[in-house]
């Protein structure tokens, strides 16, 4: 949409001028139309909470990040000795509703 007010693009940190076409979302900010199209969706590592490092992932070409389940694991957390146990712990911590007592 054409911008009503000037702002700074949250991706390239360059100015977005008035009437320039871009995207705006409440609480997030603005971004250029061009920047938004180049933006690569980054999955979140459920263990450490940081970005999963999708651009450097060995499966980057085979992972459709728009279509897969939201959480992944980063390379560092995958390398932990008990990585799967850590994953399960993180799920229990972040989604406490799933800790059902039988």
């Amino acid at each position: 949409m054409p911008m009503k007010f000037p702002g700074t693009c949250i991706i390239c940190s360059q100015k977005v001028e008035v009437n320039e076409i871009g995207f705006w979302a409440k609480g997030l900010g603005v971004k250029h139309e061009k920047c938004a199209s180049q933006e690569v969706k980054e999955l979140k590592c459920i263990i450490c909470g940081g970005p999963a490092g999708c651009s450097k992932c060995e499966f980057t070409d085979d992972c459709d990040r728009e279509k897969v389940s939201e959480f992944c694991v980063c390379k560092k957390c995958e390398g932990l000795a008990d990585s799967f146990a850590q994953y399960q712990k993180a799920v229990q911590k972040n989604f406490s509703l799933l800790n059902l007592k039988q």
Partner: protein
Amino acid sequence: MMWSEKHRPKKIVDMVGNEEARNSFVDWLVKWKKGAKPVLLIGPPGIGKTTLAQLAAREFGYDMIGLNASDVRNKANIEELLSPLLGNTSLLGRPMIFVDEVDGIHGRADFGGTEALLKVLKEPTIPMILAANSDQSDKMKSIKKTTKPIYLKPLPPRLLSLYLSKVLKEEGAKLSPGTTIKIIVESRGDIRSLLNMAQAQIGGFDPPTEKSFERLDVEAAINAFFKAKSKEEAQVVLYSLRIDPREKINAFYSSIVTSNLPGGTLAKMLDVISEADVLYGKIMRTQEWRLLRYLDNILLKLYGENAQVQFSQYNLPWPLLNRLRWDGRTIKALSSVLAKRFHVSQSTIATFYLPYILFCIKNKKLDIEISSEYSEIIQKEIDLLK
């Protein structure tokens, strides 16, 4: 035992991936009260829709009643199956209904099922869970309106890798890095497929080429099946042949009947084909597509070491097929000429008259003036008369 069964999670929290979807589902079930919208789990096969419903029933103390598309495709069935459950809940403990593959009710297979199901979905007295692979059809759109849709997505490859490492560790098995990556990529986020492929690899079968063994063509697959060194290898080849089940049965049938097999072996193999055909017929008649999983197990009985079977597309020997094709055409034209002469239909000539006419010509009792182009076929047919 299949790894996909052995490693099936025991609790919802033990599942892998789709954390937010699982959370929404549990939230729905925790807050469930009479009249609440049923939940619709939407997602591709092998990512845990059925497992989620089964574990929820176990963890929340419900008695799950599982139905599938074939049970709910007609109105009478729905009334017969669901009405007692919805009307007498106190007598039946704590029932919960799970309808799998609701997107399977479509086209001619729907005898008022969707409409009746929609009516039930509007006022549920017990928790109802529906599962579908896709929500794109018009019927699914109307089902979606009366339910709370929850989308389950394929798993990211790296998460699959994490899970596969855990399973391999528990099994005390190892895979080369190349094979691991190949399996993860080819499973496309489907956990069941991932475990099946990994188990097949550990079983000792190394695919002949680097190309995806999921996409072996029919000829290569049939030949590889009969040349397999073990039953496990044959099983993998069979699973890799992802074509229409009818075509699969036909490919085996045509290859077997055209191969030079001893009578006993041929009879046994034809029995197996017949068994597979009966199963497929049942699937088509009842639309119970879940039975399809047993097809490969039936066809596996065809495997026998040193069975001299080669793929053939045609279910008749080539000379006979050739004769049918070319001579059949000439006989048809001849029948047309004779039909006019005898004032009967072409099919009557071909079915009833022709053998007698040929006998008469052979015994020189009948002289039909006919174009010379048919003399060759007449002579050929006379030679075949006993």
